């Protein structure tokens, strides 16, 4: 099979993994050195595909032959898809070619399970080792980790890769039993623990070789089973806590050709995935806890974002006086982000904040208005009920044309 045919099959097979980040790598440069590649912590999106997703890395599978039969996966062994397998050298050639063209900032390599977990992991590590050692490649490398692989192999991977990820896919043991019978929550968490331990070992040891400097991440599929947003968010929160994960990705289940009966035929609304990302961002960046966002079972609201939902539930806190309030509380005002909060605090050291300033700082005023006080403004809506406010502020779905071919 020609390289280009393999590429088409193994890129098509890799598109269901949401992550494509090339950020958080340490500073590396090839200036005046043999070899190629650099990284500086900032990710670069070299292109965007018409699904609105960023192309930052060459994201491919080493092979889509797979012994597992995960029901949600297009590459499960019972799936009738064309199969292909790259040699490690072919992956290296492609990575370097795309890198020199400035089409990507590195490689994100995953694989179906062939022969054994250890054998598969060895192959992945081999690619990273070839790139780093033979070709002195200093770009970004993200390797998927096979949970059941020998911890020694995972540790080796962590020394070559900027990022490792172990996909949890379904957050409950029951979900895994039903849809991914070969997978097991215990071994997934064990692999996360191996990576976490590796990171802790080199922490505060500037001379030690680096270990996954861009951290570890995982992915959960949304809408392949009945799991609700509350379970997803609480799982994410404990993963951030237990293993210091850098990111949890949420991937709306994408229906696959010849779908088995055990998984839905239709995708969940992409808006659900979007709301989960918003909530996740509040967990990571704003100091919210999962319990504050979803107390008890259920889904996040689709018609309002989770920050607005929290504010509507906590009207006693608002309106907040922007000239006095604690920065952490300002950041909880809908329509005002961390960056704007910082700018407001800077500005109020010089003079009083006026309503007009918020326009210039490009706040989403329609959302912020009911929740703020400035030196020249007091909200008229302060006494409006949360129910009425929600009616005013909720996103109305765009009218949609019926699909012609559905």
């Amino acid at each position: 099979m020609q390289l280009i045919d393999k590429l088409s099959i193994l890129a098509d097979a890799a598109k269901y993994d949401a992550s494509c980040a090339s950020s958080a790598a340490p500073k590396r440069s090839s200036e005046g050195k043999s070899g190629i590649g650099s990284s500086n912590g900032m990710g670069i999106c070299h292109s965007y595909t018409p699904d609105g997703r960023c192309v930052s890395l060459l994201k491919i599978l080493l092979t889509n032959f797979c012994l597992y039969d995960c029901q949600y996966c297009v590459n499960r062994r019972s799936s009738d898809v064309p199969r292909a397998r790259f040699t490690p050298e072919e992956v290296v050639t492609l990575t370097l070619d795309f890198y020199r063209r400035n089409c990507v900032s590195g490689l994100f390599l995953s694989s179906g399970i062939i022969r054994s977990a250890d054998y598969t992991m060895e192959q992945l590590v081999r690619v990273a080792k070839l790139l780093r050692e033979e070709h002195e490649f200093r770009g970004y490398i993200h390797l998927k980790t096979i949970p059941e692989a020998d911890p020694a192999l995972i540790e080796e991977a962590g020394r070559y890769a900027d990022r490792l990820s172990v996909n949890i896919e379904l957050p409950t043991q029951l979900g895994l039993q039903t849809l991914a019978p070969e997978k097991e929550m215990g071994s997934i968490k064990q692999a996360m623990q191996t990576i976490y331990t590796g990171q802790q070992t080199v922490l505060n040891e500037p001379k030690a070789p680096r270990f996954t400097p861009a951290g570890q991440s995982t992915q959960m599929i949304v809408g392949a089973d009945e799991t609700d947003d509350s379970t997803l968010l609480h799982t994410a929160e404990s993963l951030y806590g237990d293993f210091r994960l850098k990111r949890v990705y949420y991937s709306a289940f994408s229906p696959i050709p010849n779908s088995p009966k055990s998984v839905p035929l239709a995708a969940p609304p992409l808006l659900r995935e979007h709301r989960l990302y918003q909530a996740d961002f509040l967990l990571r960046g704003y100091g919210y806890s999962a319990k504050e966002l979803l107390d008890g079972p259920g889904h996040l609201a689709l018609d309002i974002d989770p920050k607005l939902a929290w504010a509507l539930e906590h009207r006693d806190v608002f309106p907040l006086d922007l000239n006095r309030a604690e920065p952490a509380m300002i950041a909880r005002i809908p329509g005002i982000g961390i960056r704007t909060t910082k700018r407001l605090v800077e500005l109020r050291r010089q003079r009083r904040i006026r309503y007009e300033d918020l326009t210039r700082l490009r706040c989403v005023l329609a959302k912020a208005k009911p929740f703020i006080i400035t030196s020249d403004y007091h909200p008229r809506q302060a006494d409006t009920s949360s129910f009425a406010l929600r009616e005013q502020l909720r996103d109305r779905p765009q009218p949609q044309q019926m699909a012609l071919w559905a």
Partner: protein
Amino acid sequence: MIILDCDDLFDTWRQQARWLLSHQIDPDQVSWSVKEDADLFASDDHYPPHNGPFQARVPLELLELLQNAAQYCGDQRWSLLYEVLWRVSHGDRTAMMAGDKLGSEVHRRLKQVSREAHHLHAFLRFIALPPCNVGKDLEVKAALLETQKLPEYVAWHEPAHDILHSASQHFVGRMGKHRWMIATPKDGVFYDGERLIHKRQCPAAWQSLARHADDPHGELWLTYYSHIFNPARLNPKVMQGHLPTRFWKNLPEGPLIPALISEARTGKQRDGQARQIAERRGKVIRSGH
């Protein structure tokens, strides 16, 4: 009215601004313009060449901010900066802040400039030239380049602001000892493996080399781009927000985009697999090998 021309050079502007400030010349009294325009408004006022008595003190961060904002190409490019400098040097630091009217315009420009630098890092595409010894044609070209050496990689890019010189430093770290060149309609850079050479007017030979480079192995990237796209998640609006259409014409994948969108609209929405893959014969793997 004083009309000045700084030839779009920050250091020249800086000298001029320092002189103006030392004479306490109000921003209303001065404007920057290119030479031909300047003649239209030429004034007979004469000013002493030496610096005046006013000693301005400004924070170091202001200089950096002005230097970055100066890369923005647009109306009032230089006079806006003088107004900021004037206000800060007279004790009003809000002029540097995004909450201020003038400051918010400065910050908008800074954002555009850094976004455009990022666009260079992201959307520029290098094409490998064949090795130098393959023909007379290329030797002639090398001679035309003034650098005497042919680059190994060339790129054509059309930035909206004057970011090329500072932002192309990024590729020195990225490309190692390789020689590369970036040509634009305005300026150009050439890295010979050791030094980065910047030409304010990109030589025609550079432009022609970059614009007409052959890319016999471009198919792989196009294949990858088409197959990593998930047609079941079509969302062209988000894509265009991140990848403005003005870049499409210089991206090899640009011409693919309209067809991928329309194919996804007409019936590919149910699953994520590309048509070319669905048409091929599949292979089920028997359990237990």
